């Protein structure tokens, strides 16, 4: 069986940590979540913890922690700014993230400090297909997916 990965092209991706960021129309915030390839590597999520609203976060820094099976790991901020909201529903029911990673399973909203500069460090638009193909090939070559 070949697994297909849904990587929507309407947002920006952190190539290292498989986190996505999407500006929210009409606001000064970006929503942040984990992408399908990141989830594939982790499996069903059991628990999530997130930093407090109002915390200043740096790109590459931990904004929370998650546990899937027995692996725990930090969730990493794709952009710097101030943590403006947390998805309380996902905190109570982490499998929401597995069910709908790009919708109801978002993790936090960040008020970015310098979206223009930092979004350039994320993968989006024309660069997306090559990056996705490369990542899927990497997963396959390692035997993580078929």
């Amino acid at each position, binding site marked *: 069986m070949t697994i297909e990965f849904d990587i929507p092209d309407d947002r920006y991706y952190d190539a*290292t940590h498989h986190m996505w960021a999407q500006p929210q129309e009409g606001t000064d915030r970006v929503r942040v979540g984990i992408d399908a*390839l990141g989830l594939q*590597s982790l*499996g069903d999520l059991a628990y999530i913890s997130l930093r407090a609203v109002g915390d200043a976060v740096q790109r590459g820094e931990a904004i929370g922690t998650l546990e899937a099976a*027995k*692996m*725990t790991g930090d969730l990493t901020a794709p952009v710097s700014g101030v943590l403006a909201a947390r998805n309380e529903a996902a905190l109570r029911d982490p499998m929401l993230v597995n069910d709908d990673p790009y919708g109801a399973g978002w993790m936090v909203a960040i008020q970015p400090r310098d979206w223009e500069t930092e979004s350039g460090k994320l993968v989006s638009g024309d660069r997306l297909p090559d990056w996705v193909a490369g990542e899927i090939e990497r997963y396959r070559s390692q035997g993580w997916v078929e």
Partner: protein
Amino acid sequence: MRLITDDGVAASFGLAADETLAQRVGLGASPPTLRLYTYRSHCALVGRFQNVENEIHMDYCRAHGVDVNRRPTGGGAIIMGAEQLGVALTLPGREGTSYCHARELMEHFSGGLLRGLKRLGVAARFRRKNDIEVQGCKLVGLGIFRASSGGLLFHASVLVDLDVPLMLHVIKTPFEKITDKEIESAAARTSTVRREVGREISMDDVRAIVADGYAQAFNAELSAAEFSVAERREAQVLERSKYRSDAWVFRRTEVADASGTAKVKTPAGLLDVRVTLAGRMLKAVYIGGDFFTAENAVAELEERLRWHPRHSERVAATVEDCYRRQPDLGGIPMHALCAALHKAIRRAKNAETRARSDPYACFVNPEAAIA
């Protein structure tokens, strides 16, 4: 690779040192390190997201001087002391391995342990998800933490020996009381290095063999070392700010625990199923009763259902798969088991709903399960 060994370590320092090394190794500030150590007897360590009051008999721990702390790695509560070898392997993980499956990482990092156990004549194998088992009995618990620096911490607790009655007094279990039968049942689900090798092997001998196993598995030379001054200082700071703080040790997760039980009469005997849910995941499953089936086959089935989605169809699929692989389960009618699991899960869900509707109620623990 560097090898650090120490004994009689306080829980707070042991955990702080492991997290410090994971963070530093990801930043390139510390070399890859294998730490083989024992804790001061005894301490109870809960998993990263567990609620202490749901997992640990705190009154017993306070009365008997059992230290309680929280690991950075996930999984269930364990007891550690002079007879359990702690393994902490810290490696940089940003390239290549940082986003592979937890299972593959676990298997990769378990390689040294498996080689060492094989040299002792113990036919251990990596069990699905996160344990090393021997003939269905858990021998080593495993966990992985990925720090924000990209550093990986692989944690293992090797049961060189185990005081089962003490474990049952410290860690909450689905058992209603601790009797000889319960002790026997818990003992049948775990094993120890000493039981497997059939002699009083010392902790130092086990440690040396595990170290050799890692040297071979990673094709690396191990050089004995101590923490650097900077590492020790950072670990002490983290110990004070985090691992000695009640805010860390007694923090609560927002995912509610809920338990349910079901007793079903079958032609093979009474089936007693107890489950604990963490949200939509099955956190723990106990299958008991007076049927005749190999305990290790039951233990393997319980393990497969741990940290498993609670959804009925997925539970049934896993049970069916276990029956295909484990003919020894034939003593329990499969459909009766699926029905009992379904009933226990439904009761746990109801308990969770009731707890949510009462904002002042405590979430139930396994002992408070409804029959």
